[in-house]
């Protein structure tokens, strides 16, 4: 009983602390006024000349702040590597269902989902979406097969790691090429198309392609490891 009361008291105090903090924070945030101009707006201005990409977010992600994206990709790589390292997976699937309907559905849907993912990746510079989103969508196709086939389906981990590594290396090499041929990382070493067409992005498309491939492989690995984690 005493313990419970202490616990309640500590919760109360913590709650008090958090609410005081939030109130103080909000009190200060009231003073927030939007700036006169931001670099985002400047980027928007020069986007049309420098990238020919219809989706400004894409051009920021892959071109203006390509280094951030490279960092992000390596974080993802690091995290998936950690997951793979610490989750030795067994052949036993957590979802051991053998539903024929699901299997048929998976067979039908698999190519469609992959196609959709590829679409999202390749149209990243024209419409919302890009390498990350498309990559995850492709991975979800594999996850679907996992769920449907249970123990009997397992994409080759080696192939996955290889494609993950190689696409990562491709991304870095693209950056290095930009440094060597152009004057900066991810420099536009390819010719630009006209705005709004599929091949208008130049390097941007290549970047998203590598990112998409990498994310797809990584997410497949991730789900594979999570779903088939072995008991110790």
């Amino acid at each position, binding site marked *: 009983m005493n313990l419970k009361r202490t616990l309640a008291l500590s919760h109360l105090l913590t709650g008090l602390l958090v609410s005081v903090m939030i109130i103080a924070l909000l009190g200060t945030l009231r*003073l927030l006024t939007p700036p006169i101009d931001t670099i*985002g707006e400047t980027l928007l201005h020069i986007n049309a000349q420098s990238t020919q990409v219809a989706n400004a977010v894409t051009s920021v992600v892959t071109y203006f702040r390509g280094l951030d994206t490279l960092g992000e990709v390596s974080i993802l790589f690091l995290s998936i590597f950690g997951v793979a390292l610490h989750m030795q997976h067994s052949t036993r699937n957590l979802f051991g269902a053998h539903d024929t309907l699901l299997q048929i559905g998976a067979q039908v849907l698999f190519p469609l989902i992959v196609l959709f993912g590829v679409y999202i990746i390749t149209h990243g510079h024209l419409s919302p979406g890009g390498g990350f989103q498309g990559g995850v969508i492709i991975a979800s196709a594999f996850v679907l097969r996992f769920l449907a086939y249970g123990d009997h389906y397992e994409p080759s981990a080696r192939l996955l790691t290889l494609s993950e*590594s190689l696409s990562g*290396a491709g991304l870095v090499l693209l950056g290095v090429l930009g*440094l060597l041929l152009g004057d900066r*990382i991810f420099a536009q070493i390819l010719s630009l198309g006209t705005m709004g067409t599929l091949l208008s992005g130049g390097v941007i498309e290549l970047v998203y392609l590598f990112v998409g491939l990498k994310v797809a492989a990584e997410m497949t690995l991730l789900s594979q490891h999570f779903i088939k984690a072995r008991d110790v």
Partner: protein
Amino acid sequence: MSLLYFVLLPLLALFLMPLYRKHLHIISVMLNLTLLTLALTCTHTLPMVERVAVDLPFAITFVLERASWLLLTLFTLIMSLVSLYHLRYGNDKALFVASTMLGVGVSGLILSHDLFNIYIFFEISSISAYLLTALNQDVKAYGGAIRYMIVGAFASLFLLLGIMLIYLSIGVLDIGAIAERFGLIEPRLQFLILLSLFIGFGIKAELFGLNFWVADIYQASRSSVGSLFSALLSKSYLFVLFHLTYLLHVSPSQLFFLGLIGALTFVAAEFSAFKSHESKRIFAFSTLGQIGIITLALSYADAMLSAAALMLILTHAVAKTALFLALDLLERHFHSSHSTIFARFHAPFLMGIIALAGLSLLGIPPFAGFVAKLSILTGLASLEAYGAVALILLISLIEAAYLFRLLTGFRQGTGKERLYVAWSHKLLLGFMVLLLLGFGLMPEPLLQLCQAAAASMLGGNHVPL
């Protein structure tokens, strides 16, 4: 020569891992030595400014000036030493990936001048640190890693808040541009932003009030990993913290507050170590103590003291690396890091290394640590900060008490085991101690480097755009 190679080369080496998965230890050594060479070749072209993305003002910039060059060289040196140390233990994929990424993270942290980019590198180094903590894959390792992740997630929340508020109020991310426009922000908001950044970096830089997790993390991870944490990780965050502090022209009272935090860090850490019997915790506390002194010295924003603090960063990093690597040898042999193992072995060379590195750590002559400590004390005295001098001297006694207690083990106890130390390890550790001794006897060149670095760190390292 592009500064981006310090980030791109390790990443390339990582992504091409499947090509040489059996020789990662060799690749690691080659990579780190290459980076060290690259860092050294930059000496004559300082300061270097590189715009990473676009030519407009306020793009992502990488800047290598004297201070960051000094740290970058130190980091690549330590990474090379640690990877050379692991050469004997063969292929370790997890260690290779995590430590290489840690190198990427800390290099990016000190090179980048873009706040959001700094956040990315902050996360890279944090995640590699989590992985390094969990390297042993036992309960302790996972417990430590989970603790670390909770604290780290908290830190990145506040860092993110600070960055968002900066962008929301002035719309720029380059720290030079932020410094220019920072005065436009409402003072209370300014304070909130500084505070959020302080919490974010302060947690990772292991400052008092925010550092109660440190001992557990060091204890959970391998000793050799401890050397990376102690020499690279905390120092890089501290550098960024003070870089921002100097650039944003914080008020004297805020600098005083930082100095106070530094002093508290120092006192609390040294006292905590006094009762500890776990050598990794002891070394962690000693790292905290040194960070406290460094913070205290940097908070005066004085050229001489900052030079001394940089010198302390250098000497402490080398001494701690030597100590942690030696401890790693012991830990591999005894499967324990309790301080009693110091009385259980007989290996004159190793004992000498530990003793001498320990002396340098304590700031006892004729080692480089002494030069750093002496310059800090004389610097404080010439600023008439006699209280700080007295504090450092008094608390150093506590530090001496526990470090010497550890070292007495060497000459005491019976039934000692003979410990075989490989020649390569002897060479490596001997090199580090020679480095400490050499710079202790001839500190002038290093002091000059540190003075130049301090000048560029303080004197508006604001690089012309």
